[in-house]
């Protein structure tokens, strides 16, 4: 930045050019002013007026700050514009690499009966709710045709280990059939109740990550996640420890879901994650899908309660970190990375355009293809808005270039939405 400050120091104010900016009034005489990539500063109204009118003088502080924040440039010099362009390009780099995430719902069956289940699991009928070999083969063909140099294949359910042979088939076929240079990553999202040594061996052989569900200490977890025997917590904890031992600590992650019973237990939940040596936590509220709606779990608390829960948890996590234990809250990390850096983040839900199709495709057990995981959850509730096609008749281009997906992606552009279009944040 020193170079730009030097340029500013020698520039007569008549040669200045205002660069695109946005602003938002925080309170009466306080404004947040940001540049094209969202980096900003606080100004009062008089300073904002002076900036916009280019009534700036070298040495008065505002002039230099405006240069440093890329809000003004010297007429005829392109360095500031090129720097903004480079940073904007970096932030939007995810558009260059469609589609990096491919979710295979290898079964909708599950042996748990969680009342908040968002995917509307089924407990019976293997023939109806398991992905067939043929469907898996066709889905994989689509996934491997995605241009992204690295693709992540995530196995979900139901409980995906109930159809472990299908996971084996897909992993082995992907290793065999991936185009030269294409990197593959695999994740199994499992409750770990059915984890066996054979599964762990396979995960180690193929560098498969394990993601599980852990809602907190034993009483809370088992209350949230009932299963025959009432031992979900015990099996999850045993599974986490075994997977950490065999695959490595950094190859196992966990997700929690917040229920009404969780709301005054956030410290207990975080302590459980710390006790199990997990590398962070995602304090995640319920989403309005599946059984979470049907059983009215979603209605049991509101945004105010979630924010209180989240704030209390985040404060506790900050203390943990201050005391020397690195332990991120993953959602806060994502938001901070998005706000403070130009690193393109892969999080599907924080992109504009949204990651539907361009970021992720979901291959359902029955061969239907969805633009997002939430899309297949909606479909189980009767809303097929995000259903793009079927592996039996579609290929990658026909799904990605379909009028339906283009319409959905266009509708997701925050840049074109009321208020978002002028949002300074």
């Amino acid at each position, binding site marked *: 930045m020193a170079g730009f400050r030097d340029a500013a120091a020698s520039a007569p104010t008549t040669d200045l*050019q*205002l*660069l*695109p*900016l*946005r*602003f938002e*009034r925080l309170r009466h005489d306080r404004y947040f002013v940001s540049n*094209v990539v969202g980096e900003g500063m606080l100004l009062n109204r008089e300073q*904002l*007026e002076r900036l*916009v009118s280019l009534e700036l003088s070298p040495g008065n502080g505002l002039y230099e700050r405006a240069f440093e924040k890329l809000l003004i*440039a010297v007429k005829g010099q*392109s360095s500031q*514009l*090129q720097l*903004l*362009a*480079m940073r*904007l*390009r970096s932030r*939007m780099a995810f*558009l*260059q690499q469609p589609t990096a995430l491919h979710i295979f719902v290898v079964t909708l069956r599950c042996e748990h009966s969680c009342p908040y289940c968002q995917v509307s699991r089924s407990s019976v009928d293997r023939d109806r709710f398991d992905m067939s070999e043929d469907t898996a083969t066709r889905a994989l063909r689509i996934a491997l045709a995605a*241009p992204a140099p690295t693709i992540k294949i995530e196995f979900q359910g139901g409980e995906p280990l109930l159809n472990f042979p299908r996971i084996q088939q897909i992993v082995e076929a992907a290793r065999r059939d991936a185009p030269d240079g294409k990197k593959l990553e695999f994740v199994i999202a499992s409750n770990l109740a059915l984890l066996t040594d054979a599964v762990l061996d396979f995960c180690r052989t193929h560098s498969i990550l394990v993601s599980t569900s852990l809602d907190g200490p034993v009483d809370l977890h088992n209350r949230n996640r009932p299963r025959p025997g009432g031992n979900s917590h015990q099996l999850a904890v045993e599974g986490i420890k075994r997977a950490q031992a065999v695959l490595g600590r950094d190859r196992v992650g966990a997700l929690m879901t917040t229920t009404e019973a969780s709301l005054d237990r956030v410290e207990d939940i975080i302590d459980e994650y710390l006790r199990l040596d997990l590398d962070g936590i995602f304090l995640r509220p319920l989403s309005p899908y599946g059984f979470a709606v049907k059983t009215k779990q979603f209605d049991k608390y509101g945004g105010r309660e979630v924010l209180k829960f989240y704030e209390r948890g985040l404060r506790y996590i900050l203390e943990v970190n201050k005391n020397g234990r690195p332990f991120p809250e993953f959602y806060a990390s994502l938001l901070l990375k998005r706000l403070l850096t130009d690193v393109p983040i892969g999080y599907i839900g924080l992109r504009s355009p949204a990651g539907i199709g361009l970021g992720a495709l979901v291959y359902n057990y029955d061969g239907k293809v969805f633009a997002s995981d939430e899309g297949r959850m909606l479909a189980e509730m009767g809303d097929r808005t995000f259903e793009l096609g079927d592996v039996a008749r579609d290929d990658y281009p026909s799904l990605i270039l379909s009028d339906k997906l283009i319409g959905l992606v266009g509708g997701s552009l925050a840049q074109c939405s*009321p*208020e978002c279009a*002028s949002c300074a944040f």
Partner: protein
Amino acid sequence: MTDIIIEFGPSQSIGALREAAYRLIGDVSCQIDTVDGRHVCRFIPKTALAGEADEEAIRTRFLDLVTDENLREKVAAETAGARDVILALAFGALAREREASGSG
């Protein structure tokens, strides 16, 4: 429930009035009519106002929002050229990278 009316002269951009009205949508509905070149903004509160102080607060808030929107329009107009250059530099390069990598 009393409506609140604020009038603007012909030089006021109606786009800025619309943007400002949208920002108040949680508290008041707004109807904008243009009569003989003057813009008449009629606000209908969604809940009963406690008194003149509430009415004045809505009036002041709307005028502040219009002031901000006017400034946004001025900035957008003055920086349109720079914005186009930045976007061209950013996404023109993306297209070239794709062509170079043979994935386009």
